[in-house]
């Protein structure tokens, strides 16, 4: 078979390199495509609008309805609002090895959320609802960072994500005593290090 690149390229080595380059691009793109289909691995791509200036009047993002809720299939949905300069509610607790769907809306400007060392990442864009679904295999105390410039106080916009072993998780958590909490946090810190 005639090499189609003969029209533009006399050199044998160079034609081989064109084929190698094309093959690399196709293999890498193809692999990501296969993974996307077989492992359901997609970037957060929810297309859903909301009026960011009236979040308190929306049912879902009204203050009383924020937080962790259990779905009928055992997975969890976390509803959150990002606003300068914090995430609400400021502390979220979820169990390990459970699918958690975050639904987040901005009350003002552009924000991002990123929990380092996990796949929990999405942009939060005013006027739109962000959705990202992931599971956390490792229990621990995680930082929940805003990772998009949102104004001069951006650095201090971060909150807390606690991932607890599945067996210890319950949605109706009684108020823990101070001392116990301290100890638990220290243990978790050791694990992280």
């Amino acid at each position, binding site marked *: 078979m005639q090499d189609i690149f003969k*029209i*533009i*390229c*006399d*050199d044998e*080595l*160079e034609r081989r*390199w*064109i084929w190698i*380059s*094309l093959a*690399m*691009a*196709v293999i*890498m*793109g193809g692999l*990501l*495509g296969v993974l*996307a289909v077989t492992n359901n*691995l*997609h*970037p*957060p*791509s929810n*297309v859903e*609008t*909301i*009026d*960011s*200036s009236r979040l308190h009047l929306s049912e879902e993002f009204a203050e009383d309805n924020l937080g962790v809720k259990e779905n009928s299939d055992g997975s969890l949905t976390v509803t959150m609002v990002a606003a300068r300069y914090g995430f609400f509610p400021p502390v979220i607790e979820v169990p390990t090895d459970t699918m958690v769907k975050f639904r987040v809306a901005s009350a*003002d*400007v*552009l924000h*991002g959320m*990123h929990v*380092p*060392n996990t*796949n929990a*990442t*999405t*942009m*939060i*864009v*005013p*006027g*739109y*609802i962000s959705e990202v679904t992931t599971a956390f295999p490792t229990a621990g105390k995680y*930082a929940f*960072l*805003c*990772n998009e*410039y*949102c*104004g*001069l106080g*951006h*650095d*201090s916009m*971060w909150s807390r994500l606690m991932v607890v072993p599945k067996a210890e998780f319950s949605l109706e958590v009684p108020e823990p005593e101070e001392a116990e909490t301290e100890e638990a946090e220290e243990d978790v810190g050791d694990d*992280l290090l």
Partner: protein
Amino acid sequence: MSQTKAAGLGLAHMWVAFASFAVAALLGLYQTIERIDLIPGLKSPELYFGSVSTHGVLMGFVLTTFFAVGFGYYIATTSLKQEVWNKPLAWFGFALKLTGVLLAAAPLLTGNASVLYTFYPPLMAHPTFYFGATLLVVGSWVWCLQMVMMLGVWKKANPGETVPLAMYGTVANAILWFITSLGVASEVLFQLIPWSLGIVETVDVGLARTLFSWTLHAIVYFWLIPAYIVLYTLVPRAAGGFIFSDHMGRLAFIMLLVFSVPIGLHHLYMDPFQAAGWKFLHMTGTFMVAVPTMLTGFTVIASMEVAGRLRGGKGLLGWISALPWGNPLVLAAGLALLMLTFGGFGGMINASYSMNAMVHNTQWVTGHFHLIFAGTTVIMYFAAAYYLWPKMTGNALYSTKLAVIQLWFWFIGMLVLTLPWHQLGMAGQPRRISSTPYDEELVQAWLPAEAAMIVGGVILFASALMLVVNLLKTHGNSQPVDNLEVEYAEPLHSTQRMPQLMNSFGFWVVLIVVYMVASYGYPIIQFFLMDTYGTVPWSI
């Protein structure tokens, strides 16, 4: 002959470029020191984000646009041996761009445009910032028109001849820039300016981000193509050899032109408001646009090998040591390719539909684009300046030795700066923060890399000073240069029988329009089909 060259235009543009570069380099040094919380007295988010915004605008918009335009005029006049199509218009374009820069500088330097160089609505800057940016872009369109007209005039005078590769790449870049700048121009003209003047109350942030993404990827190729032109057409001759393949250079420029614009949604992988299928489509094009870069790597290295062997280099790698590494063009090419390899690897991760989630908006991204842009691209700008300053001023280069040291400093500084950034990104550090008030465990792990970053910043700033001193001293040098001619490399194989498609642009422009409609049509139209809610302005 010397009257046809656009030395004045070239010098004026490139001096603005490198003056901006020097200011931005100083800001960069300050940013590395401020970020680590080392000196508590320095801590100021106002100053830091004002500085980051100014650094980004100066490096990304001013250095690049002025360099690409000045370089383009000089390459066009010397490769075609033909005058600028309309010189008064060219100077008018220069004045427009400079006015734009000064207009934007006022709010930037007073902290009234700390919205970063990506604009970030609904944060609102002072209106003059948007006007300034618009003038800069419109001024650069004058250049696009000139390049296309110059090619037309040349083709009429030389029917059937093959367009010199340097000019072919320059016109490809002019067309690419015009098409890609339409995205940001629409955002600024139809959304941000009316909104900042209070004519409309709200802005649709999803639409604004989609329009910006149209510009955001291909703009880096507008910056990079002048560097590729130097690699293809000046470096092989400086090394003492030939272009391995003129055809391959054309193919690379055509592929960059066609594939770089319709793939911008990969900047929005983590955004809501665009469905996954569109993101996947844009990823496939993103991997295709890596191909011309791989071709360029091959052709440039092969050309260097030809030169090394002509100079008596023997054996598998003996040709490398036979190359004239004391020549700034050759040295810069070698260092640029190394940085391109590192940066390209990181870019593959960013480009990946799913892996991107691990590094999105982390310091990894800053590391990636500093390697590709500030490393690969800007080091070739330096080399081009060392080569062209004597040609444009008529004065000999003040010091080749200083130039060589400067290039090594830039390379080492860039690696010391960016390799730790990649590590910080994987350890979860966000980009665009002025301090790190987070968990102790997280922040402690970042410290060694943060310290390295300062060392990198110092080395880079020293290098920037060496460049500016050398160019200034060259400009004032009383010793005349021996050779005023720009010497373009000759191809190894004859370019007499060039396929029509590789000697013209009409077909490719039609193809881009079709590709753009297919990849950006619905992602933009959807905002007019959905019930969207605009956002009111917010101060920083």
